[in-house]
Structures are given as structure tokens and as C-alpha cells.
């Protein structure tokens, strides 16, 4: 087991190196003078010259990459001249908020998708199943920001049940849990909706398959109550491949967070990524991409390990 985890971590190193090369190449595809862009339009010549020198932009590209990678290994993601702060502290300030949002959305998706998919599979081809399938299909095909806006229009503007956006009510300076939670509900629902739709379709499909397997028939034939067959036998088998699916959803959740945070003015990583993309704060973009890739790779590793915990047939060789 430990050996498997170590081996996978070792395999993650080239992937991560690939990510740094990919983003670095993309960065240098940018038209115009990089130092000028980084410094901003109002920067003086001296500032531009200083940045050029600091980043070694006058040297060949592989040396620039070496300099940047060397700093990266030491935990230095560079400096955002736009925001006048080290990239690492910009990310550190926001990453917890985005992970909280993503975690809530993930839990919400699972909490709705699994029971819905199971119930649909048990009552398959009934009116309920068809209506739920249709609804899920609509949710799957809907622009996220449209759904988020509808939620705001109904629950925040009309019913006033929930705040419109932000992270907590502005007049409270200290950390305020109830307010934070109230600000999290609508964004989490918005972020959850896409994965929820895909997963309930998936669970329904694999439950229907498992319900027709011989072992299910055997369990029923030997007189087990229907709920025991369903939860102890069928659902366990249906959930095994679902774990891999969970690991693979992490990048989509990060992407979804960009849009969700934009709709609800939620000050997380997604918002920072969008802002940096619009004002061309390249080192912030680069830093966030690398950090996200690390999280995605760790998430996939975790899914692989969990897979083995749930399915005893898997051997780690």
C-alpha cells in the first residue's frame, strides 16, 4: 500500500513538470513585451528594465524557465506586480474559501445524486424515473451562470431568504459562521448542479446493471430483506467505479468555481484567476495553475487509494 502511494507520487513528478512546461510555453506565446505587460501600462522604463532583469527576461527561454522552476521548488511562486504581493500569499488568502465552496458542492452532489440514482433504478421506467431523468438532463444542458442568476432572482431578490453575494455581511468584521454559511448556500447549489446531474445518471445506470446481476438475485432468493440487498450488496458494487469518477471531477469543480465565484462575487481562487486573466497578471495565473494541478493529482491519487479500500479485489503491485 505504502509502496503504491510512493510509486504514484513519484509518477506524479513528471506530470507536474509537464504542467509547468505547458503553462510556461503558453505564457511566452503572449504577444508584446512580457515585462511591460507584467508591470502594467503606467510603469516607467526603469521599472520595466528592473523586472526584465529580475526575471531574466533578456536571457534565453530555457534559462528563464530554469530560474522560475528553481524558485518554484523553494516554494516561491513569483511576485505579482499588478497586485504588489507575492503570488503564494495571494493564493494562500483565497484557497481555503474555494476548497470550502468545492467541498460543500461535492457533498451536496453526492447527498442528492446517490439517493436519487438509486431510487430511480429501483423504480425504473415509472413516471417518477422519467420525470427525474428529464429534469437531470435539463440541469446537465443548462449554462451554469443562468441557473445561478435564476437562484439569485428567486431566493435573494424576491424572497430575501439569502444574501445576493459576497462571503459574509460587510458590517461584521470578525469571522461570522452563520453569515458565512448563509453566503455559501446558493453558490454551493450552483456549483453542485452540473456534477449532480452527471452523477445521478451514472448511479442510475450502474445500479440498473447491478440489479440484474446474479448475485443480486441470489441475495434476494435466500430471503434477505430488500433494503439489505440494496444497500449491502448492490449499492456497494455500484459505488466502486463512482469513486474514480469523483477523483476526475476535481478539475471541473475548479473550473466551475471560476463561474460560480463570478456570479456570487465570492472572493476565492476562481475570482482571482478570472481577474488575473483579464489584467494579464501572468505569474499569478501560472502559480494558480501549478497549485491546482498539484491538488488535482493528489485528488486522483486519493481516489485510487480509496478504490482499493472499497474493492478488496484490487491489489497494489
Amino acid at each position, binding site marked *: 500500500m505504502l509502496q503504491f502511494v510512493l510509486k504514484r507520487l513519484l509518477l506524479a513528478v*513528471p*506530470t*507536474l513538470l*509537464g*504542467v509547468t512546461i*505547458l*503553462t510556461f510555453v*503558453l505564457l511566452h*506565446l*503572449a*504577444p508584446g513585451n512580457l515585462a511591460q505587460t507584467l508591470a502594467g501600462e503606467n510603469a516607467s522604463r526603469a521599472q520595466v528594465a528592473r523586472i526584465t532583469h529580475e526575471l531574466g527576461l533578456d536571457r534565453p527561454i530555457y534559462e528563464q524557465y530554469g530560474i522560475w522552476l528553481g524558485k518554484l521548488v523553494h516554494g516561491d511562486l513569483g511576485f505579482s506586480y499588478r497586485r504588489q504581493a507575492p503570488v503564494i500569499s495571494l493564493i494562500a488568502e483565497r484557497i481555503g474559501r474555494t476548497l470550502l465552496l468545492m467541498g460543500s458542492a461535492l457533498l451536496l452532489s453526492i447527498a442528492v445524486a446517490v439517493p436519487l440514482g438509486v431510487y430511480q433504478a429501483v423504480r*425504473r*421506467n415509472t413516471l417518477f424515473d*422519467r420525470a427525474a431523468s428529464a429534469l437531470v*438532463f*435539463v440541469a*446537465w*444542458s*443548462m*449554462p*451554469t*451562470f*443562468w441557473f445561478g*442568476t435564476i437562484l439569485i*432572482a428567486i431566493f435573494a431578490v424576491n424572497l430575501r431568504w439569502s444574501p445576493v453575494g459576497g462571503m459574509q455581511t460587510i458590517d461584521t468584521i470578525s469571522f461570522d459562521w452563520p453569515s458565512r454559511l448563509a453566503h455559501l448556500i446558493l453558490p454551493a447549489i450552483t456549483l453542485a448542479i452540473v456534477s449532480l446531474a452527471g452523477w445521478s445518471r451514472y448511479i442510475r*445506470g450502474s445500479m*440498473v*446493471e447491478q440489479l*440484474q446481476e446474479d448475485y443480486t438475485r441470489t441475495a434476494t432468493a435466500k430471503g434477505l430483506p430488500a433494503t439489505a440487498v440494496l444497500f449491502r450488496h448492490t449499492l456497494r458494487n455500484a459505488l466502486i467505479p463512482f469513486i474514480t469518477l469523483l477523483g476526475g471531477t476535481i*478539475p*471541473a469543480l*475548479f*473550473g*466551475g468555481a*471560476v*463561474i460560480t465565484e*463570478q456570479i456570487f462575487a465570492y472572493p476565492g481562487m476562481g475570482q482571482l*484567476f*478570472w481577474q488575473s*486573466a*483579464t489584467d*494579464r497578471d501572468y505569474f499569478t*495565473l501560472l502559480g*494558480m*495553475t501549478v497549485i*491546482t*494541478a498539484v491538488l*488535482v*493529482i493528489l485528488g486522483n491519487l486519493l481516489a485510487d487509494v480509496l478504490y482499493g479500500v472499497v474493492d478488496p479485489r484490487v491489489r497494489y503491485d
Partner: protein
Amino acid sequence: MIEGRRTRVEPIAAAGILWIALALLACWLAPLLFHIDAYATDVAHAYAQPGGAHWLGTDGLGRDELARLLIGGRITLSVGIVAALVAMLIGTIYGALSGYYGGWFDSILMRVVDVFLSVPTLFLLLFLAALFNGSVLTLMLVIGFTAWLGPSRLVRGEVLTLKERLYVEAARAAGAGDWRIIFRHVVPNAMGTIITTTTFMVASAMLAETALSYLGIGIRLPMPSWGNLLSGAQSDIFARAYWLILPPGFAILITVCAFNFVGDWLREKQT
């Protein structure tokens, strides 16, 4: 695979095909048959209610909403279709070469896919769209360039089994080169998977256009697209022009649903 679905899905898929055909016809033919102008402003008649001279009303600058919906449909549908074709072209060639040659070549190519997949697609889209802001064509290419990873894995998987078939061996015995075997014998037999995936790709590329337009780096005004009509309509709610949010919203929703229905049906027909 899923019992009893076949008979149920087919009429829905037929409805999907019908809707797509109608949408294509309406967006490309209607502006030719009737005189409409998606750019003519008429501030005196801003936010006109639906009905009368303007079937779907007008927007904040008095532009005809129906005209903008149809011209915007041209943009969004062509972005969806072209981006999907770009993604499938890259994905098919990449996946076919990787699967066919196998070995270390395959491992390296698949590692590269892993690298791309560790970066959220929307991050890549934002990164690229920020670098190459501009025309409809670059948007198509940018969306296509970020969407080929899934297809390349699917095609590779298919090619891995297809290359062991007898007809491949027969072609090789007859002296066909690798290139000919891949693109004349293997890829045509993977066409089912390729067409099914393309259908889903069109749907997700259309959603990518709306997301990018919402974030302000997709199709730029005054050119209309379903994405920027929808995001523009959100601020029109405050001007009490709530009806403007319905036409682009339903146009996107129904068209994306239609492509997904057709894709679903094609996938089930295969198995």
C-alpha cells in the same frame, strides 16, 4: 445496456434532430428571406415589449431581439460545430497514432494527455482566451484546442482493440503502409464512437461559448451570440425587461439538450 430505454429514447432523439434542423434553417435562412437587421439601433423604441413590429421585443438600444437571436444563433452554432470538429480532428489523429503504435510512444503521448487533464479546462480556456482575444475564429480554435483530450482517449481505446482485427492483418499482408492502415481501415471502423463523441462535443462547446461570453472574453459586442445575449439580458432584468432573458436562455437550453439527446441515442444504438 439499460433495459427499456431504446423504445423510449428514439422519439426524443427524433425531436432533437428535428429541433437542430429547424434551428439551423431558421438561423441561416430566415435572415435571407426576411429583412432583419441585428445591428440597427433605435433608441426611441428601447425595451419595446414583445409583439407588433418586434416579435420578441427590443433590447436597451432598441435592436430587434429576434434578429439578434437568429444572427447570434449562427455564431453560437458555428462556434459549437467548428470547435467540436477541431477537437475531434486533433483527438482522432492523436488517439489513433497513440493506440496504433503503442509502446513507449503511446505512454509518452498519454502522459501528455495527463498533463493537460491536470489543468482545469476552464483555466486553459481563460488563459488562451486572454492571450488571443479577438475573433470568432480564434474562439473556435481555442475551445477546440481545449476539448480534444477526452476524445483522444476514447479513440485510442477503440484503436487498441481494432488493430488486432484480422482485416488489419490482411491489409498489412497485402502491403499497406501504417498510414493507410490507420486512416483507411482502423479509423473508419471507430467512426461510431467518433460521431457519438462529436455530438456531445458540440453541446459542450456551445456551453463553453456561453461561459466565456459571460466572463467577458467570448464573443464581443456588438456581435450577438446566444452567450452574450444571455449574459447581457441579466442586467436588463433591472430595467424591467425580464422577457429578454427567456429567448437566448431557452435557445441554448433546448439546443444543447437536443445535441445531448441525439448523442445519447447514438451511444445506445451502438451497444
